[in-house]
């Protein structure tokens, strides 16, 4: 994989820990635990990210958390993050209203290799919150639709109430240049769609292994099964793209928390090829 930036400071600062200020300009509750935030940097500048990168968001007095950027760089100066409430930082963001100021560092990390996808078919596989960074990619692909071959999105989630970005998904479904398929682990009888893990969606799929780039983000268990599937399709290991989550404290490869064997997820990732991760036992794939 090449071409993707490794570390992009928006501005070189004496303290890599000093955040820029950003304002919450929109808040949409997507589910009972997930909220989409639209943020604007106080100086009005653009974040300047690529899909798959993340920011460190901070609420002063509470702490910092790494969060994927969910909006596409093709969409103007405000950017979006979609956050599941699990602890201190994510919980306190929930309590802040519009206009509140929070800190932003980043964007950090290596994003999806967009350039390598150009001219190729893209197979996107999202599990649960994995849709958050992938939404950035999907929107980007759609905004530059002509550059890519077939675009397929497989999205699996626990049950229909956990589906994120429902309105957008409906719009994507309506398009005939995207093949979008959804499955849930558990559903009421009223659910008309597919039931089962995301791998069930592979059944009626035709994949051209020579021109398909699979991109997957989801929980560790999902990776194990999906990687097996795409390998079985004959896609080479160095074309399989995944994004990982680890504990992070700095985002710049100092603090040591996100290390997987010798690799730093915050810098060398979070986006990797399967070939890169295969030999790392701590990647747990």
């Amino acid at each position, binding site marked *: 994989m090449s071409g993707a930036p490794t570390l992009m400071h928006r501005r070189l600062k004496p303290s890599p820990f000093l955040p820029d200020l950003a304002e919450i300009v929109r808040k949409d509750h997507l589910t009972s635990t997930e909220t989409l935030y639209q943020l604007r940097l106080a100086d009005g500048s653009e974040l300047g990210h690529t899909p798959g990168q993340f920011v460190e968001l901070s609420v002063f007095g509470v702490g910092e958390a790494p969060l994927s950027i969910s909006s596409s760089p093709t969409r103007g100066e405000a950017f979006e993050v979609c956050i599941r409430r699990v602890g201190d930082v994510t919980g306190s963001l929930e309590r*802040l209203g519009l206009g509140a100021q929070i800190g932003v560092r980043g964007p950090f990390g290596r994003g999806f290799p967009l350039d390598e996808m150009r001219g190729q078919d893209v197979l996107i596989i999202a599990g649960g919150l994995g849709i958050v960074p992938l939404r950035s990619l999907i929107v980007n692909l759609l905004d530059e639709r002509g550059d890519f071959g077939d675009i397929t999105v497989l999205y699996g989630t626990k049950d229909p109430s956990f589906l994120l970005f429902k309105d957008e998904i409906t719009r994507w479904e309506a398009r005939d240049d995207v093949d979008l398929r959804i499955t849930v682990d558990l559903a009421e009888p009223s659910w008309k769609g597919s039931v089962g893990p995301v791998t069930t969606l592979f059944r009626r799929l035709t994949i051209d292994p020579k021109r398909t780039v699979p991109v997957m983000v989801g929980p560790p268990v999902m990776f194990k099964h999906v990687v097996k599937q795409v390998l079985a399709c004959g896609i080479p290991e160095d074309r399989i793209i995944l994004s990982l989550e680890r504990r992070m404290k700095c985002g710049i490869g100092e603090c040591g928390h996100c290390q997987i064997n010798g690799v730093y997820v915050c810098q060398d990732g979070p986006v990797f090829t399967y070939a890169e991760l295969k030999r790392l036992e701590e990647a747990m794939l």
Partner: protein
Amino acid sequence: MSEAMIEALQTLKRPRVAVFELASCAGCQLQILNCEDELVDLLQLIELAYFKEAMTETSDVYDLALIEGAVTREADEDKLRTIRERAKLVGTLGACAFPVGIPGLKNGHDLEEVARQVYGEHASYFPSVEAKPVDSVIKVDLHIPGCPIHKDEFLRVVTGVLLGRKPPIPGYPVCVECRLKENICAFDRGLICLGPVTRGGCGAICPSYGSRCFGCRGLADDPNLASVENLLEDHGRTREDILAEYALYNGYYALHDGGLKAKVAP
């Protein structure tokens, strides 16, 4: 805007805090009063709803009830259940309330015999049951450990609770802070030490003052008890000695639930 933000961040606004006492030395309550530099500011942040040692007024609903002391009488259990019903959050204050502290020392003795030793033939006036930690009776939301509690940690917990943060109590062992303080390890001073298995956060204050850790903060999250037992045996201690070591502050857990184990804190 700024005030609005701080307001918004707070899960509890000027919470009503109550301090209750069971069998204890009252030293943890005193530690609250010992926050001399902060007390005036603290009283702006919280409303003291019940604090017998310091005040007369009482109130019956609390956002945060802090309980000092071990359960040693049946009546204590009812008292705790009432507190639990009236309080949004319940926390323990100090080692007596969790893991049981010095009051638990009597658990190793025959209780009737102990009462007789102290009160002679009048022992029956003073019923006492085995000393137990508060969370053996009611659900506890947070523990502020230590014998006594550490002032700074108490204040950090309070501000943490106000901002909806998890209580900042470390899970790592005392040795971590001890090494950072560049102390001469107790084991290098011919002593033994419970630092490797005891929850840190006290700044390893006992080894820092030339003593050793006796385990007042309870077990760390991930103690390697088997290895420490070997270590103490290598330093000439028998299994009984080791149990007696743990019994000083961790008497309840040393004798119950199949012995000491980790992850007892919420």
